[in-house]
C-alpha cells in the first residue's frame, strides 16, 4: 500500500512509523502540509497514488482542516475529521465521553469570569482550569484558592486568545500520583503505561516517569467505549484511577507513542502498521 503521511515535523514517532512501513515494502508519500493547497473538489496531485492517509500534524488547526479535505476527496484518512474535531477540543471531548456513559471528571464550561468563578466555587479547591485547545499540559492551572482563581481568570480574560475565553473548569481528581495512557486502534489496546510524577501534571512531556501497565477488564471496556465515543481511530486514551475505578480524562487524536515504545516491550509501530494494513483492506475494495 501507499501511505500518505500528513506532517509538518517529523518526530521520533513518525520516524518509527516510516521505518516500519518501508521495512514491510510499503510506499510512503510524505505530505508536508505547509506546502499543499487544498482545493474544494480535486485532491492536490501529491495524493494521486495514496491508498490511505495518516494525519501526523501537530497543529490541531491543520489537523482539523486537512483531514476534512482529504476525507472529502474520498481518500480514507486516519483519524477521521469527525474524530479530530471532537478530540481537538476538550469541551467537545468531555461531552462526547459523558454522552457515551464513560466516567469522566465533572466539568463545567463557562463564558465569563463571573460564571467561571461560580463553577470554581461550586467545585471547591483545588480544582482545575484548562484551555479547550492545547497540549502537553500547557496553560493548565490547578486552583488552590479564590485569590489564585481570580488572578488566573483575570489574566486569561485580558491576555487570552479567543479560545481562552471559553473557561473549562474541572474537578480535581485526587489520583495516586499517576495516570494511565493507553494507545488503542479502534478501541483495541496496543500498549499501556502509567506516568508517575510528584507534580499534579503527569504528562510524559513534563518529565514524568513511565512504566508498562496491565489493563484490567474494567479499563479495557472503558478504552473501547471512549474510543467509540469519539468515532474510533488511532487514539491515546488518558485514564486515572479514582480508588474505586477509573475516570477518563480525554482522548487524544494525534497520539505520540515514542514513550510507550520505551516503557513497554510492545512493538508499537509494528502494531500500528498491522492495523493500517487492515484498514486499507476494509476501506479500499480491490
Amino acid at each position, binding site marked *: 500500500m501507499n501511505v500518505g503521511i500528513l*506532517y*509538518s*515535523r*517529523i*518526530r521520533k514517532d*513518525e*520516524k518509527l512509523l*516510516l*521505518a516500519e512501513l518501508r521495512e514491510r515494502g510499503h510506499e510512503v508519500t*510524505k505530505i*508536508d502540509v505547509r506546502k499543499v493547497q487544498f482545493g474544494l473538489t480535486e485532491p492536490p496531485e501529491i495524493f494521486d497514488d495514496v491508498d490511505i492517509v495518516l494525519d501526523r500534524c*501537530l*497543529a*490541531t*488547526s491543520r489537523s482539523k482542516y486537512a483531514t476534512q479535505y482529504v476525507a472529502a476527496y474520498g481518500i480514507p484518512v486516519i483519524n477521521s475529521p469527525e474524530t479530530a474535531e471532537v478530540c481537538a477540543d476538550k469541551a467537545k471531548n468531555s461531552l462526547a465521553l459523558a454522552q457515551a456513559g464513560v466516567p469522566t471528571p465533572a466539568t463545567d464550561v463557562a463564558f465569563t469570569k463571573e460564571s467561571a468563578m461560580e463553577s470554581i466555587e461550586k467545585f471547591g479547591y483545588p480544582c482545575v482550569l484548562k484551555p479547550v*485547545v*492545547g*497540549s*502537553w499540559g500547557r496553560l493548565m492551572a490547578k486552583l488552590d484558592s479564590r485569590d489564585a482563581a481570580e488572578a488566573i481568570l483575570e489574566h486569561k480574560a485580558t491576555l487570552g*486568545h479567543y479560545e481562552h475565553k471559553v473557561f473549562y473548569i474541572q474537578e480535581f481528581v485526587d489520583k495516586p500520583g499517576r495516570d494511565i495512557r493507553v494507545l488503542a486502534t479502534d478501541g483495541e489496546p496496543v500498549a499501556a503505561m502509567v506516568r508517575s510524577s510528584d507534580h499534579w501534571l503527569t504528562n510524559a512531556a513534563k518529565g514524568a516517569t513511565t512504566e508498562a501497565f496491565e489493563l484490567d477488564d474494567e479499563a479495557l471496556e472503558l478504552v473501547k467505549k471512549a474510543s467509540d465515543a469519539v468515532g474510533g481511530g488511532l487514539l*491515546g486514551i488518558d485514564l486515572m484511577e479514582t480508588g474505586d475505578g477509573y475516570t477518563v480524562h480525554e482522548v*487524544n*487524536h*494525534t*497520539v*505520540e507513542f515514542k514513550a510507550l515504545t520505551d516503557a513497554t516491550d510492545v512493538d508499537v509501530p509494528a502494531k500500528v502498521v498491522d492495523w493500517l494494513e487492515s484498514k486499507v483492506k476494509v476501506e479500499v475494495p480491490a
Partner: protein
Amino acid sequence: MAECVECGADVALHDDLEIGEIVDCTTCGAELEVVDVNPPVLEKAPELEEDWGE
C-alpha cells in the same frame, strides 16, 4: 555532515535522516529543519505554533 545556517559550524547527522526532521546544532543550539537529505540541507526551523498537538 551539513553546515549550520546560523553559525556555520558542522552539524553531525545520523544515517536515517528524514526530510521534515528537526536537528539541533550542538555549537549554537539553533533548531534546524532538514529540507533535503541527499545531500543534507538544513534551514532554520520555524518557531513553534501556539496550538500544537496532543
